[in-house]
């Protein structure tokens, strides 16, 4: 759910990074935070456990710039990836405008990816969203590791809708901004259809 404020001339949108545990959702946000100008970003908030596993969510507000005199802000959230945090994951999806699915490219994580994607579809449906209609980008993360699955195979398994997908290494940065840019663009194009 975006928030268009004519009084302060702002457009606020919510993007959620989804994916299995340890796929690199928080790392994506950390990289974006590290590489963004201080005047464009707010604090990166992480509600995490002592072992740095996401407990509830990470949050990063980004001010990208102006479109026709309106300030465009994106609020980036991650969900906790671990299976037993299902109840919390649902809550974060409330009011989402666009989703990034971060997949772990390691062959042994394929099943976890598929499970997480099913979980995403069900949780979205519970909130009244259809994954096939929502602005949606897929990221194949950890491409620098030796045991990765070919992108063609991952596309078949995880991207039947054939939405834009990006190869990434979130720790060092390749693909991170390309992913964000793509989902942000889809969100704005979607808003344009309605307003």
């Amino acid at each position: 759910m975006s928030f268009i404020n004519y009084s302060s001339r702002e457009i606020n949108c919510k993007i959620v990074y989804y994916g299995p545990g340890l796929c690199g959702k928080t790392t994506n946000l950390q990289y974006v935070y590290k590489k963004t100008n201080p005047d464009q970003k707010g604090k990166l908030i992480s509600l995490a456990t002592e072992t740095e596993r996401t407990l509830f969510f990470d949050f990063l507000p980004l001010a990208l710039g102006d479109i026709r005199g309106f300030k465009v802000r994106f609020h980036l959230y991650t969900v906790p990836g671990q299976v037993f945090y299902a109840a919390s994951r649902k809550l974060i999806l409330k009011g989402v405008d666009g989703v990034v699915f971060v997949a772990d490219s390691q062959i042994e994580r394929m099943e976890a990816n598929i499970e997480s994607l099913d979980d995403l579809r069900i949780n979205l449906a519970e909130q009244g969203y259809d994954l096939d209609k929502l602005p949606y980008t897929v990221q194949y993360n950890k491409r620098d590791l030796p045991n990765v699955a070919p992108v063609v195979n991952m596309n078949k398994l995880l991207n039947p809708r054939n939405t834009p997908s990006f190869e990434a290494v979130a720790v060092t940065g390749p693909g991170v901004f390309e992913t964000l840019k793509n989902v942000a663009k889809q969100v704005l194009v979607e808003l344009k259809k309605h307003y």
Partner: protein
Amino acid sequence: MSGSDLVMYEEEFSKIDEELQRLYLQTNAKVVFLVDKNGQLIASAGETHDIDTTSLASLTAGNIAATGGIARLLGEKEFTILFHEGEKDNIHISLIGQRIILVVIFDSRSSLGLVRLRVKKVSEALVKIFNDITAKSERDRGEGKLDESPFAEISDEDIDNLFR
């Protein structure tokens, strides 16, 4: 997806602002602010300069969402009031009209009783304003496009420029 987008116009915004200013003065609070359930800050009043209101808004919404989850597990519809007591500052969070979150931060210059009383009064006024906003945006949606829509002439180039 944008079935529940919130579109705020100048007229309603100033009404909301007026209500928040009044609440701020009547309760002797430090800060008063309004957040939508998804974590977007809508308006604020009081000593906001040294507070990170964006983060506060997002965390407050997370707090309400988590509490709502607990409520449903217990068979309650929702818990409409949360109160956190600190050494100096206290925070009173209330859910209004199932959609908007009103937050009052106050210290010993005020009291919980006073805050609760005033929050209750202002809630009714706010519910009415938000009903008007919903009606207005549904009407505009029905008519198609908004007046002076920021998206009317938006181009791919405009979007690309955001990322330069």
